[in-house]
């Protein structure tokens, strides 16, 4: 079943009268449970596409159906609700709140669900699933980069979303930490989560089942991965 369906989507940035076309005539369908990598050179529009798919930004033209519903008329409040309950984000630069414990960082989406019950339990569960049960009470600046990205994944997971968007999640990590992160994403996908990964690195992309390449704001290729890399989920941490 189609989780995401976009038709004829354009994105034009307008800065002080200067129009930059970042995406042009994008048509794309992503089904529930897919693991899709979006690839392309720098400036090709990968992040722009991901932001539109994740409701962080709106398309200039075109149609977007999420879980079968046309989202054009959705207001800010409704979109916030979708981001909160249906979508998890993982960013290249982690984006953890400073001077805040690992646990509070992970619990943040639950706060905005106004779901004050079992918060701590659920956050701890999410942290355990990324192998960080022992770092619950650490502050966000007391853990390594790899651990930070796993905290970010736990935060993306905590509200049990349908899809996780990850924009260059391994971009700031060494290869070992990167492999750990990819292993976690693959496991989540095996457990049924839809994963949409943005990367410019082919090897990283080949951890997915399907690779879409973008060039100059248009979809260039869209093909299945034949020899998928499996990031053995090494006994993480310590």
């Amino acid at each position, binding site marked *: 079943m189609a989780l995401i369906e976009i038709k004829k989507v354009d994105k034009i940035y307008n800065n002080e009268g200067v129009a930059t076309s970042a995406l042009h005539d994008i048509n794309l369908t992503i089904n529930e449970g897919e693991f899709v990598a979006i690839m392309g050179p720098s400036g090709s529009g990968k992040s722009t596409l991901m*932001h539109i798919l*994740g*409701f*962080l*930004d*709106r398309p200039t033209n075109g149609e977007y159906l999420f879980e079968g519903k046309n989202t054009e008329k959705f207001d*800010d*409040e409704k979109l*916030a*609700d979708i*981001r*909160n*309950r249906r979508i998890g*984000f993982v960013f290249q630069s982690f*984006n953890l*709140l*400073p*001077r*805040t414990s690992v646990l*509070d960082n992970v619990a*943040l*989406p639950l*706060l*905005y*669900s*106004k779901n*004050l019950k079992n918060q701590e339990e659920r956050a701890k569960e999410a942290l355990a699933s990324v192998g960080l049960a022992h770092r619950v009470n650490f502050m966000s600046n007391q853990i390594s980069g790899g651990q930070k990205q796993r905290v970010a994944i736990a*935060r993306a997971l905590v*509200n049990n979303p349908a899809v996780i968007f990850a924009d260059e999640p391994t971009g700031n990590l060494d290869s070992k930490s990167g492999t750990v992160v990819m292993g976690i994403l693959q496991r989540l996908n095996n457990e049924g989560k839809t994963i949409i990964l943005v990367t410019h690195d082919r090897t990283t992309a080949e951890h997915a089942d399907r690779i879409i390449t973008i060039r100059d704001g248009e979809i260039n290729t869209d093909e299945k991965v034949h020899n998928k890399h499996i990031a053995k989920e090494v006994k993480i941490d310590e």
Partner: protein
Amino acid sequence: MNKFYYLQAIKGLRRNPSRTLLTTLGIVIGIATVILVLSAGAGFKSYINAQIEEFGSNTVTIETRIPASTKQRAQGAEGGDTAGVAVPITTLKKRDVVDIARLPNIAGVYGASIGQAISVYRDVSKNAFLFGADASRFAIDRGVITKGRAYSEQEDRALAQVAVLGNDIAQSFFGEEDPIGKTIRIGALNFEVVGVYARRGSGGFSNDDEQIFIPASTLQRKILGTDYYFYLVASLVDNTRSQVTKLSMEDVLRQNHQVVDPVKDDFVIKTQDENLSTFNTILSATTFLLIAIATISLIVGGVGVMNIMYVVVTERISEVGLKKALGAKNRDILYEFLYEAIILTLLGGILGIILGTFLSFVVAQVANAFGFAWKFSVPLIGIVISVGVSTAIGVIFGVFPARNAARLSPIEALRYEP
């Protein structure tokens, strides 16, 4: 009060300790300054009012003045002025007191001379101020004699060696002992203590509590070796006719002093209203100055808070973006900042009131220690205005940038570079 926003705000404040500290400090200083300034203003007014009270109502003072011609010769300056200590004018005599007392609308009049002498009782010795006044002063002055009595007209005329003591000097000489009937030594003479004043505690121009009051003629003839007064004080029956009375007093004095040309007057008469007008000028100038200072400190404090709020909210726009990405609604963002601003301004307000009150208290204590009749008070209006203004500034400038940030799309906020 919403628990969710409250908790988020507390977390937000903890996450930004420097902002929390600086903003609170800005508010604390602003409010404390305003309270201090207004309290000091009220204290200063209470002091001035006490001074006005000291003059008594319905009184007219006659002071000496260097006549214009003499002064011109002496200093090459124009016009006359109140005589300083340097060039004594010796023309105010008993005769002037007697003649003025006969004028209509005069309730009483006395002359006063001032001296200083080593005064001794047993082993206590003080260089005391001697206030030599006619006995008629006791009917005019507001001081209350709590022990013993005043000296009489007859004693004054007879150059009697009797003294009424200010409360403090009586205390230093006699302590618990009863001073009445005791003999103290003033200069080379023995005086009998006949009365003691209640404590006046006014301080200021002269401290009555430290003075020894003796008959004017005794002071003049027996200690100073003179026969003139330093100034006269008259009290009027009807203060509304003070200007007419002043004119007739001038006539009497000119006649007695053989002055024809008013320019050569060797005295100057000031009615109560004229004396008060000086004070009132001081008072309104002071009030104006204080309001100006308070306004400036509020503006300075407010601009400080405004800047800090603006800068830190701007710095936190990417945090706003992250929260929006995680599902925070515009309202959530706005309320978090609003609660933060309210908590900050309340905290700063309370600390500012405490600090301002404490400093005002210290100022009042210091002023009292220096002998000024300075009442400690914290004007409620100062608290209301300063807390109101700083809260408004804190909330407005904490929330406006936040509202703009909340309206950005999540990605614009995430990518925002301050």
